[in-house]
Structures are given as C-alpha cells and as structure tokens.
C-alpha cells in the first residue's frame, strides 16, 4: 500500500489500565477515503482505539499517525479528526446552526465563509430548514444529522464515529446507515466507525477490523471476514456457523485439506495457513452453506434427521442429527422444496469443500 494512501496508521498500539490491557499490540492501516469499521463485543477495545485516534485516550505503547504525522503529542483540539459521539453530545444551549458552526467559530474562521459552510453542511444532511431550531426540538434522526453536520463541516482528515446509531430503533437505524454511507461516498471522506453490530459493519464497510479482548483478530473486507474467518473468535462472532472439532489427516489439491470429525465424519475444506498437516482443527461451515435436501434426492451428501425446525420469516433453520450422531444446522430460504421438510423427517445434508474453513486456532 502506497504510504500516501494511508489516512491513519496504528502502529503496535497498547493501552494498559493497571494490569488490564485494553489494547494489546494493535497495528493496522486505514486507507484514505475508506469506510473502515472496528467491530467487536463490548469491552474489546474498539472504542478505546477510536478515542486514542481522536486524542481522548493516550496509548501507553506504540504510535498513531494521521496523514503520515504522529499525533500522540497533540491534544484533541489540535488533531485533524472529528468525532460523532455515542450520545451525540450536541450543545443543549446552542441552536442547530450554532452547533454546526461551533468548530469553525473556535478556529476563528471568517464569519461569512463560516455561515456559508454551515448552510452547505445543513443542506448535505438535509436539514436546511432547521437551522433556527433548538436541538431539543429535534427528533432522534434529526439530531443524528446535526451531529454529522457539526463534524463534517470542519472537513476532517478522518471522521470518527463511536456507535452513533446505537440508540436508534431499527427502521431509523437502517435509514441512517444508508445516509452515512451516502455521505461518505459523496465526500470521499475517511470514516472510522465503531460498532458491535456485525450486520451494520457488513452492510456499511469497505473493510472491517474485528477485535476481541484488546487484540486485533482479523482485518479484511466484509466478504473476507465472513467467508474466510481467521480464527475461532471471528467465525463465532460474525454470522452463524457449524463448528466441528476435527483432526487434520492430510492435504488435498488446490489449497484444500482432509480432516476427520467426530464419529468418523469425513470433511474436506480450505486448509489452514502455515502448512499444518496434522493436529486439531476447527471446521467452520456457515449455516446457509449447508444444503438440506429431501430424503429422496440423489446420493449427494450424508443422511440426517431433522431435530428442530425454526421458522424465521424469510428463512428456515433446521437442526439435524447425522447418522453418526453429530449435530449440524442449516439455514435455507423459506421456499420449496425445504419448506415442506418437517421435524423428524429424514434428509440429506450436502456442502462444498470451498465453504468449509479449517482453522488451527
């Protein structure tokens, strides 16, 4: 990656609170113009990392560079970043226009030019008619937009978003996701977005960094994260998957490997990196990649019995027990022919080796 394309560079950053490491040896590069998400459960360090970029936390180790310049010695007000806070933190004593213009005013920008930019920012978030309102006269979605305008009007090198959609109900949340994505594309700005919602991260991001217990687990596109989880944590945290403990038995062609699961279940899947050829592995197979076929179908796959069928609206979830006694779960669209399969029915389960990921940790 060319150095000039990097907006934020996190280098071996650690943050210790006493004996607890909130961040542990985190290194990653965020590209300019990228929608980058930090995804993980609460307490994983994603917010600490975001606040470290903004200057609200001081890392105890490592360095953070923005546009190639170390920013660790800079106070928040000196950094080329702006943050949208979890609870927005709009100024209650100021109107919409004053909130949006706050940053420009603090920097002593020219009054007329500021006023123009504030109007522009309000138009950008579609609040051009709300400049005179008090912030407590706005709806949740409108307040979101004010927070966005207040940050974006300063034209930050990096926009930091600390779970700003967390408090919204689902419909509004989806709407704001779209809105954020639109803004980011339109402005070509670099967004760093913290969330614990994997669906949100998937839908919005160019790339995602999955974090757990202060450590970086995997960095990649949503597809890479989902299709090729790097380890057990990513496989479980993102999406739903069958996790089968198995032993490697040998290598196969095209980057595949053979493994043996419980009760003699033969598995073929994408081989773990580092060339391991034996030892324990975890076979990961997404629910929807497991095909469930009526019993009469051709001899593809293995025989199983449906233990439980869960109706989920657009999809159906079947928990099955294989002849050898392993439990496997399949998600299918709520359509024929799977729709007619019921609990207790005999079925066949099939999958492609390319959909099985073998993990050593």
């Amino acid at each position, binding site marked *: 990656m060319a150095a000039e394309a990097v907006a934020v560079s996190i280098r071996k950053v650690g943050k210790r609170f006493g004996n607890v490491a909130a961040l542990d040896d985190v290194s990653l590069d965020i590209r300019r113009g990228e929608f980058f998400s930090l995804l993980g459960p609460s307490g994983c360090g994603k917010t600490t990392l975001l606040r470290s970029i903004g200057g609200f936390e001081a890392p105890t180790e490592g360095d953070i560079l923005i546009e190639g310049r170390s920013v660790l010695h800079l106070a928040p007000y000196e950094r080329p970043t*702006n943050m949208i806070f979890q609870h927005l933190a709009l100024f*209650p004593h100021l109107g919409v226009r004053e909130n949006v213009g706050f940053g420009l005013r*603090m920097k002593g920008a020219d009054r007329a030019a500021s006023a123009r930019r504030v109007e522009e920012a309000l138009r950008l978030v579609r609040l051009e008619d709300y400049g005179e309102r008090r912030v407590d006269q706005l709806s949740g979605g409108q307040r979101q937009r004010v927070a966005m305008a207040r940050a974006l009007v300063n034209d930050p090198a990096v926009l930091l978003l600390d779970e700003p959609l967390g408090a919204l109900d689902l419909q509004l949340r989806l709407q704001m996701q779209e809105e954020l994505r639109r803004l980011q594309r339109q402005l070509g700005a670099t967004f760093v977005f913290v969330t614990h919602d994997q669906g949100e991260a998937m839908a919005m991001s160019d790339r995602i960094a999955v974090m757990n217990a202060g450590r970086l687990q995997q960095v990649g596109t949503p597809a890479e994260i989902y299709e090729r989880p790097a380890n057990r944590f990513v496989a479980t945290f993102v999406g739903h998957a069958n996790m089968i403990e198995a032993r490697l038995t040998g290598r196969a062609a095209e980057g595949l490997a053979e493994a043996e699961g419980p009760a003699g279940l033969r598995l073929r899947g994408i081989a773990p990196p580092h060339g391991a050829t034996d030892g324990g592995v975890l076979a990961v197979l997404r629910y929807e990649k497991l095909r469930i076929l009526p019993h009469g179908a051709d001899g593809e796959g293995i025989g199983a019995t449906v233990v439980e069928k869960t109706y989920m609206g657009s999809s159906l979830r079947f928990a099955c027990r294989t002849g050898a006694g392993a439990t496997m779960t399949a998600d299918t669209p709520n359509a024929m022919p799977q729709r007619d399969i019921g609990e207790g029915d005999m079925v066949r389960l099939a999958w492609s080796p390319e959909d099985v990921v073998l993990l050593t940790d």
Partner: protein
Amino acid sequence: MPRPFPGVRPIGKPFWLMLPGVAWLLVFGLAPVAFMVAVSFWRSSIFGTTPDFVFDSYARIIEEPLYLDLIVKTLRMAALTTLLSLLVSYPLAWFLATRRGAWKAVWLVAVFVPFWISYVVRTFVWLPILGRNGLINQSLMALGITDAPVEWLLYNEGAVYVGLVYVYTLFMTLPIYLALGRIDPKLLEAAADLGARPWQTFRHVVLPLSWPGVLSGCIMVFLLAVSAYVTPRLLGGTSGIMLGNMIASQFLSNNNWAMGAALSVTLVGIVGALLLVTGRWIGIAEVFTGGKK
C-alpha cells in the same frame, strides 16, 4: 382529558388541599410585610411611634444624605461581596465538581462542615484572626515583617467583605457546583474535538451551561449581603456600617419604628426593582425554572 382512575368519581377540584400552603404564605410571608409597610407610614416623635398615614419617614430618607448615602454604600458593598464570592466560589465549585470517587465525598464534607456552625460564631472567629493581637499580626511580627501590630485589618469596610464572603460563599458555591455537575462531560470532549482550546471550552460551553447556577448564587449572596447585620456589626466598626445596622438601631435604640420600617421598605423596593431590571437582561427566569424554557 382521560380520568386517571376510571370508576372513581371525581369530587370537584379539591381547592382546599391548597389551604395549608396558602395559609403559611399569608401568615409568615405576606402579613409581616404588610405590617412593615403599614408601620412605615406611622408618625414618630420623641414619645414613640403612633399609627397614622404620613410620608414623614420617606421624606427624611430622600432629604437627608445620611440615609441615601448609606443605601448606596450598602448596595455597593453587597455587589462587591457578590463579585468576590463569585470569584472565590467558581473555582471552588469547579474543583468539587471535577473530583471523582471517595475523595469527592471527603472534599464536599470538608467544604460544608464549617457551615453547620452558626454564622454568628463563624463571624466571631475573624476577631482573633484579624485583631490587634490576632493570628495574622502575631505571625507578621514573629516573621519580622512588621514591628507593630497592623491596625487596619479589622473594624473597616474591608473586614466586612472578608466576613461576608466567608459566611455566604457557600450560597454561591452550591448552585454553581450543582450546575457544573449537570454538565455532561461528553460536551467538553465534543468541544475539544471541534477545536476548542480549554479556555474556549470554558467560555463557550461550561460558562453558559453553568450560568443559571451563577445567577442564583449571585442573587442569593446579594440578597443576604444587602441585608447583612451581624457581620458589619462585629467586624465593620463605624466605617463598615451597613443599612441593616441602621434599621436595627431605629427599632432598638432610636425607638423610631416608622423610620426603620421605611428604610426596610425602601431597600426591598430597590432590590426588587434591581432584580426585575437585571432579570430581563440576563435571563433570570431560568434561575427559577431550572434552566428550562
């Protein structure tokens, strides 16, 4: 409007529930003021004060510079006391509001405990501190800074400020402390994030958001200081006298109730007018409604 308890028959608006409150206000609030206003129109002579309806006392207040000067001086002293209290209290309130954990309770108790003691006693303690052979003079002489006791520490206007600020400062600290405590710390971060340097954050976020606390503190201290009696009496000597002392002596030694009452009414009128005028200017309504419009 839907009935809150369906099936329960309303028995008309229960005005009588207001009775205790209204009675309290009438007996302890309105009646004494009304009586004082009435007395201010009585006639006074060397034989005492007799009920009447004359403007003698008010005429004297206007005609004799002694009274007007004292009223102006009292207002000036109350204003300066308020200002000094604000300067002392704001940093103190900020300090208290920004403490965290167990130490916060310790600091709060340390600040508030002295105020469990009567303000008369707390005024008295300045005598052995500021007095001729007091703590300060002893220290100054022990350190060789002065040879003889400094005489101007006590019994003047300056000593009254020391006493008043000390005695009433908590009435300023408390509302400011509460107002500061209500400020979401995230707002300070948001301000810093938007490029505000610390003093800008203070000027544009902290100060406006604590303004209602500042106003109610100022009003409290001003009202208390303008009617001060004990502090100027104990610490002020002859040059530190305030209107409260004058009013008291009209009642107690001059036996001129009408004059005392008239001075009181005049003070109430002036202070009320001041509150009205400044209220328009600085948004006093917020003080009494808790900052909600």
